[in-house]
């Protein structure tokens, strides 16, 4: 079976239909993420600004920062890393056409569009649009943080600096490496979520998602092994790191391709809620 043809008009109609039917759930998902992010980073910032008001720039940070830098970001970075990974993985599942019940399956499978068109819609929503949505929601949460901090703790006014202005302070070679790793891990994680979504039984889906839990460890271990093998020879290390990224990004591309190939095989026998008697 092949994913079939691609028709631009039908694809546009498919996107319009998906947006009309799932708009509320998408917006709710973004709203929840915005509220959680705003609360966490505001709470962290208030703590840091309070400490800074007492001891000034002497507050300990993981990265050496110039005077006047917003030191609260030192704490937010770990949240940014985790939230980006989780957000993108959830977005992949969220943007898949609802097939939790037999009625939803019937409607989705009989929608007169090719599997190729359905796949491209899913990928566009899950990867580039989710990236844009994440950036916008994070910036909105960051502005909320600044607004709340400046209102609740006026002394923080010169300290609270928006993310897009202050992120440059944190971009040394180490954080750049972390962000590159995060991006690769996330893209691979999304591809694994997509592929496991198209597996036939609940058992297979649940079992294969253990790979997701293991993913950061596998990638982290392989990454630290590289660093250990090439601690000083930077050129060789860089070459191996590039190869490392290419390998895992290639794996992600293979997973997405396999997902695209599997979509036409799906039928009403794909039990979406975990029915263990059928698995």
């Amino acid at each position, binding site marked *: 079976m092949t994913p079939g043809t691609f028709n631009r008009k*039908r694809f546009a109609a498919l996107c319009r239909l998906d947006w*009309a039917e799932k708009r509320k759930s998408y917006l709710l998902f973004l709203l929840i993420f915005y509220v959680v992010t705003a609360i966490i980073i505001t709470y962290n910032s208030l703590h840091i600004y309070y400490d800074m008001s007492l001891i000034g720039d002497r507050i300990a940070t993981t990265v050496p920062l110039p005077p006047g830098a917003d030191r609260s970001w030192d704490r937010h970075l770990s949240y940014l890393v985790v939230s980006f990974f989780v957000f993108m993985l959830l977005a992949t599942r969220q943007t898949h056409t609802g097939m939790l019940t037999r009625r939803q399956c019937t409607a989705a499978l009989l929608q*007169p569009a090719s599997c190729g068109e359905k796949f491209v819609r899913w990928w566009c929503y899950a990867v580039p649009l989710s990236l844009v949505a994440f950036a916008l929601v994070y910036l909105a949460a960051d502005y909320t943080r600044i607004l709340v901090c400046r209102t609740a703790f006026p002394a923080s006014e010169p300290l609270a600096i928006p993310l897009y202005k202050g992120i440059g302070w944190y971009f040394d070679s180490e954080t750049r490496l972390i962000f590159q790793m995060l991006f690769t891990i996330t893209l691979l994680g999304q591809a694994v979520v997509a592929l496991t979504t198209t597996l036939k039984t609940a058992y297979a889906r649940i079992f294969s998602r253990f790979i997701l839990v293991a993913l950061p460890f596998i990638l982290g271990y392989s990454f630290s092994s590289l660093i250990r093998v090439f601690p000083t020879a930077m050129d060789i290390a860089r070459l191996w790191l590039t190869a490392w990224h290419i390998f895992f990004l290639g794996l992600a591309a293979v997973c997405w391709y396999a997902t695209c190939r599997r979509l036409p095989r799906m039928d009403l026998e794909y039990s979406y809620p975990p029915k263990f008697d059928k698995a």
Partner: protein
Amino acid sequence: MMTIEHLSFGYSKRKGLVVNDLSLSLDTGNIYGLLGRNGVGKSTLLYLMTGLLTPSAGQVLLNGTNVRLRYPETLCDFFLIPEEFDLPDYSLQKYVRLHAPFYPKFDYGNLRQNLELFGLTEDLRLGELSMGQKKKVQICFALATRTSWLIMDEPTNGLDIPGKSQFRKLLIREMNDKRGIVISTHQVKDVDQLLDHIVILNEGHAVLNASLTDIRRKLYFTTEAHEAETAQAYYAQPSPHGYAAMLPNPDGKDSEPDIELLFNGTLAHPDTISALLNPQKP
């Protein structure tokens, strides 16, 4: 034309085959009644006919294309109304605006006419409708798509008494040589005036596959006052006026087929009725 070729399907090896080496040929211009006991596989057959399930053997071809491939050109040439379905919580106008582009032959004027017949308007909010009203809306929309095949699973379930009569009127009005309709139902009385071909499923096989014309020619349906008068009948059962009987029709007498009697008679004597109406089958 829809062709079912040696179709077999089972949900699991333990439960065995629901559809077993079934072959049928369905032509446009007819309304097919798909009958069978509960759990015999009527809905399963409809799902196979629409590419929603993958057969273990055989295939269903719609104008020469395997429906299981679910090509958009095939998907927009039939419409399935399942027994139970969901409609989104927005207006019918919006529903039409979003779904009609997938059906190249969609007829907006026809949709208005169909809704009018059921006494419905376009400014309905779908989330507020009862199941019966949702079914009416779905039937109107399905007919307006102008697909070659309309496949309905228990279409009269949930319809009120005037609704059933309006449904029959609508189908008669919308039927033409370019369209075929398959109705799977237990409520034979609701649709018996519409059907012009009967398929009865039993144990994975089509024990009867015959047009109403053939059935009329070969069988005579009557009601006798006494049981003794039904001695020659293939099948007879008590009725409010005596005994409803299905008799041989060597003289070619005209009678109105009693589909319920035919169904019960076929299941009671499948070999006899099958040999009479499907002589090519073993």
